[in-house]
């Protein structure tokens, strides 16, 4: 049994649940709890800015052309800059500007928001923390009894089994059709992407890992080849027929059983 964290919290937000596991380290218990409270408040604040489900959120108004650039909260241009970067890094397989209904940063913004939340815990001085935003995970430090946080990648056809287990040092994101159906759009032709059962990306930034996992889910082996050339990132792809492929960066993070 993995050592129980000092503070565990499951916060419903952004249409999913964000789970926190926090080891206080030298931080006082009440201060650690307060930092988790603040991280949760930040997630709700960011949801209010970026939700495309809420008609009058700043993001929705931008998509509808009903907000001036000077009225935009600074978080929106920051996220769109990251989206541009992710589009370049993914060779165009992640492209928020090719989505129906106007620019849609959904594939990156949840990972980015969870990264902001984990940043609050880091600044508060807690020893180690992990935040899992519905399957996309940002973390720092490590549990007191282990050299790394250990994370399972969900098996695409069994909700209670792992396809593999990894030692993660910063971020991991997974995309696939098994939770919400074929929801991803191929930016090249607007069709619903169906070339992958599961796509996982690890790397230093959860915002980028989230976007790149979306890219691999859409572009399958072609996108995997693009990611394999990125310093610091690794990717793991499972096809609809159960075939698998991983980049060398991903294989290095695999936990060896036994």
């Amino acid at each position, binding site marked *: *049994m*993995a050592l*129980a*964290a000092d503070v*565990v919290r*499951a916060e*419903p937000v952004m*249409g*999913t*649940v964000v*789970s926190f*596991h926090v080891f206080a380290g030298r931080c006082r218990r009440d201060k650690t709890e307060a930092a988790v409270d603040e991280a949760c408040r930040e997630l709700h604040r960011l949801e209010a800015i970026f939700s495309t489900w809420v008609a009058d959120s700043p993001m929705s108004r931008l998509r509808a052309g009903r907000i001036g650039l000077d009225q935009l909260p600074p978080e929106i241009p920051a996220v769109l800059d990251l989206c541009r970067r992710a589009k370049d890094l993914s060779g165009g397989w992640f492209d928020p500007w090719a989505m129906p209904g106007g620019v849609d940063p959904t594939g990156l913004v*949840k990972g980015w928001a969870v990264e902001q939340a984990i940043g609050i815990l880091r600044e508060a001085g807690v020893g180690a923390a*992990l935040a*899992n*935003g*519905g*399957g*996309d*995970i940002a973390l720092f430090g490590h*549990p007191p009894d282990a050299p790394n*946080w*250990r*994370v*399972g*990648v*969900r*098996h*695409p*056809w*069994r*909700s*209670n*089994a*792992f*396809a*593999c*287990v990894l030692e993660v040092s910063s971020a*991991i994101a*997974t*995309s*696939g*059709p*098994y*939770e*919400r*159906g*074929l929801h991803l759009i191929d930016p090249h032709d607007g069709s619903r992407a*169906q070339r992958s059962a*599961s796509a*996982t990306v690890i790397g230093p930034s959860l915002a980028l890992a989230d976007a790149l996992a979306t890219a691999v889910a859409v572009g399958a082996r072609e996108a995997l080849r693009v990611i394999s050339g990125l310093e610091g990132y690794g990717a793991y792809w*499972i096809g*609809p*027929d*159960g*075939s*698998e492929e991983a980049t060398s960066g991903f294989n290095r993070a695999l*936990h060896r*059983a*036994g």
Partner: protein
Amino acid sequence: MPPSKLNRAGVAAVSSVAGFAFVLLAHTAGHRTPTAPGQSMSGPAAATAPPSQGQASPGPAATTTTPATGAPAAGGLASAVGQNEQYGYGVLSVKVTVSGRRIVDVSVATLQTAEQYSQSLAQQVIPMLRHEVLSAQTTQVYAVSGATYTSEAYLYSAQSALDKLHV
């Protein structure tokens, strides 16, 4: 609804959060508490199931390991071949090798298929099966990375079980 997804996938062994928690505890407790070889193998009876209905692509159907009861000598290697299982493209049985109480390998024992395609498919599926059994038995994780679940689906997720276990 994940539970019905599980039923469609034909996985009978573990279909609830409570079930997952049990398997997780059974696996991790296995390191410290002596258990009979048959018991330690009963948890990760692995199945690679087909994609849920509604997906366009064909997928591998259930391949189940059903370890036989032959108990290995303490510390020694022993293996058992499970019963033949229909897996959509043919009939397959899986061989499980244990050392002491720990599963050390999973491989295809027999495979009868009509098509070349199925042969290559089975070769591809088994590496996943191997990862799954070995990792589920011997590792302790804090989190599960996967496609984004809804707040309703969270209740049935492995992450939800981990969050409860650690409170």
